[in-house]
C-alpha cells in the first residue's frame, strides 16, 4: 500500500497504485486516461462553445478564448521568434492548455468521491508516463524544428560557439526531457500529496491555503513547461552568426 506506509500507517494515500487496463498484451494506467479524457472533453467543450459564433466584438467565452490565444501567441512569439512561431503555436498552446487543465482539474475536481477498485483519480500530470510523454514530444519537436528549418546545419548548434561545448550540448539533449518531465511530475505529485496528508492530519481550514498554493504552482508549472518547450524550439531554429 503506497510508499509511505511506515510514516502514515493508517493513511488512505494510494501512491503508486494504478488501475490497470489490459489492451492486448499492453498494460495502461486507466485512471490517467479516464481523468485526461474528462478534462480534454471539458477543454474541447469550452473551445467548441467559444468558437461556435465568433464575432468581431467578442462576447462571453470568445473573450476567454481570445485572451488564451493572445497569451499563447505572445509566449510562442517571444520564445521562438517572429519567423516560425506560427508553425509551433498550436503545439505550445496544446502543451500549455493540456497541462493547465490537467493540473487544475486534478486539484479542483473532487475525484475522491469516485471509488476505483485500485488506485485513485487525480491529475494526469501526476503520473510519470504523462510527463515523460510530453517531454519526449518536446524533444522530438525541437529536433524536428531544427532539422526542418536548417537541415544538417542544425548540428552546428552543438559546436557553437566552440567545439568544447559538444559534450555538454549532447548531455543537454538528455537532461532537457529529464528535467521537463520530473519538474512537472514532482511538483504536481508533491502538491497532491501535501494536500492529501494535510487533509488527513487537519481536515479543517489548514489545507485551504495549501490548496491555493497548489493552484498557483499548477498554473506556474503549465507556464514553465510551455515556455521551456518554446524556448528549446526557439533555440533549435535560431540562426547563429
Amino acid at each position, binding site marked *: 500500500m503506497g510508499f509511505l506506509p511506515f510514516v502514515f500507517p493508517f493513511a488512505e494515500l494510494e501512491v503508486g497504485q494504478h488501475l490497470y487496463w489490459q489492451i492486448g498484451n499492453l498494460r495502461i494506467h486507466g485512471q490517467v486516461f479516464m481523468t485526461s479524457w474528462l478534462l480534454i472533453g471539458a477543454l474541447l467543450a469550452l473551445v467548441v462553445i467559444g468558437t461556435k459564433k465568433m464575432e468581431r466584438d467578442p462576447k462571453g467565452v470568445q473573450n476567454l478564448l481570445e485572451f488564451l490565444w493572445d497569451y499563447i501567441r505572445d509566449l510562442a512569439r517571444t520564445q521562438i521568434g517572429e519567423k516560425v512561431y506560427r508553425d509551433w503555436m498550436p503545439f505550445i498552446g496544446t502543451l500549455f492548455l493540456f497541462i493547465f487543465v490537467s493540473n487544475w482539474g486534478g486539484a479542483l475536481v473532487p475525484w475522491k468521491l469516485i471509488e476505483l477498485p485500485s488506485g485513485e483519480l487525480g491529475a494526469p500530470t501526476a503520473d510519470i*508516463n504523462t510527463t515523460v510523454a510530453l517531454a519526449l514530444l518536446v524533444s522530438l519537436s525541437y529536433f524536428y524544428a531544427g532539422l526542418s528549418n536548417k537541415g544538417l546545419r542544425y548540428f552546428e548548434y552543438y559546436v557553437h560557439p566552440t567545439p568544447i561545448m559538444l559534450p555538454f550540448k549532447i548531455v543537454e539533449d538528455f537532461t532537457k526531457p529529464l528535467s521537463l518531465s520530473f519538474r512537472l511530475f514532482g511538483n504536481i505529485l508533491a502538491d497532491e500529496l501535501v494536500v492529501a496528508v494535510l487533509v488527513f492530519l487537519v481536515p479543517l481550514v489548514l489545507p485551504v491555503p495549501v490548496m491555493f498554493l497548489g493552484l498557483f504552482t499548477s498554473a506556474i508549472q503549465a507556464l514553465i513547461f510551455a515556455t521551456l518547450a518554446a524556448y528549446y524550439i526557439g533555440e533549435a531554429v535560431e540562426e547563429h552568426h
Partner: protein
Amino acid sequence: MPTLFLFGASEGGLFDFDATLPLMAVQVVLLTFILNALFFKPVGKVVEEREDYVNTSRAEAKKKIAEVERLETELKDQLKEARLEAQKVILEAEQDSENLYKEALALATSEANASREKARREIDSQRDEALNQLKGEADNLGDLIIERLLAKK
C-alpha cells in the same frame, strides 16, 4: 513493456512505465491537431481579421485627419488672402473718396473765384460808368454855373 520498480512494490509504483506513455503521447499529438482545427485556426483568424480591421481603420482615420488638416490650412490661407483683399479695397475706397472730395473742393473754389472775379469786374465797370456819368453831370453843372455867372454880369 519494460516496467521499472523503483519503490519496492512488485506491481505499480510511482515510476511505473508502461504503454500509458506512448498512448498519452499519441493522445497529445491528436489533441494538438484537434485544437489547431477547433481553436488556434478559427480564433487566430478572427483575432487577425480584427487586427487588420483596426489597422486599416486607423490608417484611414489618419488619412482623414491629414485631409482635414490640409483643408484647414487651405481655408486659413484663403481667409488671409480675403482679409488682405478687403483691406486693399477699403484703402482704395478711402483714397477714392479723398480724391473726389479734393476734386469737388477744387472745383467749388475755382467756381467761387470766377464768380467773385466776375462780380468785381461788373462792379468796376458800373463804378466807372457812374463816375463818367457823374463827371459829365459835374461838367454840365460847371458849365451851367459859369453860364449863369456870366449871364448875371
